[in-house]
């Protein structure tokens, strides 16, 4: 599949929203950079990245405490936040394109719950794996299991909600709720089976926080996220075509079955990895693409890239807020995104009330 890069996009003055979308891309890059720097300066320890930077440039000794705070705590947390935000926003945008519906979101329709089930299963049942396999998987066991759980959930959901190329919104939402409930119940059974050490792992995992980000934890989840983030822009042309329905997408030359398979894998990879490292963080996947569609239109060639950037910037912002609102304690970031995203989601629903016709 050949991706059309934004640079080669045809431009005819007047109706082309591409130029506007590219300006937004630039703006988002700047915002993401600014947000990242801001995030590095905020924290319980009084470490200033500027002072550390100045010391390093001047060749002065940087204190061990400052080095640890900056490079072992704040930086991995920043990178994790950016990647999780990008992964969640992109998986939302891809899923909405796949289902041709702005309400499809991994968190809403059970994909995150499926990924969560996978992660919990890996923690609780990991001991049952043959020792060789368990050793080979190592840190990757939880992300890989979360990916498989998310993939299975997406596949089942698509099978339930789509008949003859048409997706029923009501079936998708109701089926997703049922899937989510089922995955939640199975997760509950697994938690019930868990021993004390596993419960401790589960509790830390389930906090839904970027706290405790380490380079090792990052390394386990990054490959899946990066794969998904790289694959997503290649889906842009196909998802645009899919807006016309599956038949018309095929007519304009889109290999529809392959597109759907790759899109489902992308959603599962991004969501699975994000859930594996940060628990469930809601609303990023629905709010970010929707905002961008309002601003620059639904063209996925821009939407996917901009979603990644805005998702990353927003999650870093939410993380900063979660760290300073009740400092020195931390608010779980899931609460911040829900407080920001919940009302926004309600607003979408109210605006669409007549259109959705549930």
């Amino acid at each position, binding site marked *: 599949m050949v991706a059309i890069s934004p640079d080669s996009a045809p431009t005819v003055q007047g109706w082309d929203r591409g130029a506007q979308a590219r300006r937004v891309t630039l703006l988002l890059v700047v915002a993401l950079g600014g947000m990242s720097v801001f995030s590095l300066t905020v924290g319980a320890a009084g470490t200033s990245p500027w002072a550390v930077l100045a010391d390093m440039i001047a060749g002065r000794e940087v204190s061990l405490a400052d080095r640890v705070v900056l490079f072992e705590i704040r930086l991995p947390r920043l990178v994790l936040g950016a990647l999780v935000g990008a992964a969640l926003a992109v998986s939302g945008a891809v899923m909405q394109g796949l289902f041709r519906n702005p309400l499809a979101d991994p968190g809403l329709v059970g994909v995150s719950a499926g990924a969560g089930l996978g992660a919990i299963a890996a923690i609780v049942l990991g001991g049952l794996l043959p020792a060789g396999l368990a050793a080979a998987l190592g840190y990757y066991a939880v992300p890989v299991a979360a990916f498989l759980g998310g993939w299975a959930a997406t596949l089942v959901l698509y099978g339930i909600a789509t008949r003859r190329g048409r997706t029923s919104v009501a079936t998708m939402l109701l089926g997703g709720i049922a899937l989510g409930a089922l995955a939640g119940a199975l997760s509950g059974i697994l938690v019930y089976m868990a021993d004390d050490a596993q419960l401790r792992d589960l509790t830390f995992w389930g906090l839904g926080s970027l706290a405790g980000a380490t380079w090792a934890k990052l390394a386990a989840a990054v490959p899946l996220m990066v794969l998904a983030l790289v694959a997503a822009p290649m889906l842009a042309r196909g998802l645009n075509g899919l*807006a016309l329905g599956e038949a018309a997408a095929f007519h304009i030359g*889109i290999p529809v079955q392959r597109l759907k398979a790759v899109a489902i894998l992308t959603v599962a990879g991004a969501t699975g990895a994000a859930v594996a490292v940060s628990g469930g963080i809601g609303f990023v996947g629905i709010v970010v693409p929707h905002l961008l569609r309002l601003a620059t239109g639904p063209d996925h060639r821009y939407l996917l890239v901009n979603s990644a950037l805005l998702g990353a910037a927003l999650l870093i912002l939410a993380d900063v807020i979660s760290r300073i609102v009740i400092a020195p304690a931390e608010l779980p970031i899931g609460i911040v995104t829900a407080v920001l995203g919940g009302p926004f989601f309600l607003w979408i629903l109210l605006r669409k009330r007549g259109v959705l016709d549930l």
Partner: protein
Amino acid sequence: MLEARGITVRLGRRAVLCGVDFEALAGHLTAIVGPNGSGKTTLLRALTGDLSHGGRVRLNGQDIADLRPWALAGLRGVLPQATPLAFPFTAAEVVRLGLTGGVEAGAAGLVPQALARVGLAGFEGRYYQELSGGEQQRVQLARVLAQVWEPVAHGAPRWLFLDEPVSSLDIGHQLQVMEIARDFADRGGGVVAVMHDLNLTAMFADRVALISEGRVLGLGLPGAVLRDDLLSAAYRCPIRVNTPPARGTYLLPHAAGRVAAE
């Protein structure tokens, strides 16, 4: 040339098409007519490669089952009966979707031309969802035209498949769309159109296929197929064919004709 042999399609247990043979020539407008539920649209969907079916379809000598979607998209455009659109695309963005595959891929200059061709010049920035049903249908036609803009590419004809292209249009736009299809065929392309309106079919088609209950009752020149006996049998009502009107003038039959027939 488009050549279909032994097309059989089952939906569930019901055979919608039973061993249908069909052919259409480049440079011709071939109409498929028949009563509701006779299998017209199903035949068109088999010809465009949408449906899995028994039998073979060859387009310009190539079995369409062997062609990749993008190669097929460079060879033929398809206008479905209705195209629901997700997300708020503008008319121009919808037309540009037709340029994602095929020979003209990337030729953005075609977008305004294609819209102008269907009488929607200046509609580029309008939101598709806010257009009337007839305007939406014409935007979709512009998209399909943009996809196969030149009726002949690399010496081979390209094809337009139209499923009831005039169903939601007023009489003036019906004629406009049929003229566009006619022009595409006159410039060397092939057009296959499912039609409900027998008068328009008689005015514009070079060849007509009459389908009833999944079988072809007749395939040939309009005069040979649009006959009282065949039409009456296919549509299960008395039909009398008058002398076809001269091209360019649209004649409406009136109720007296029906009474006289009875």
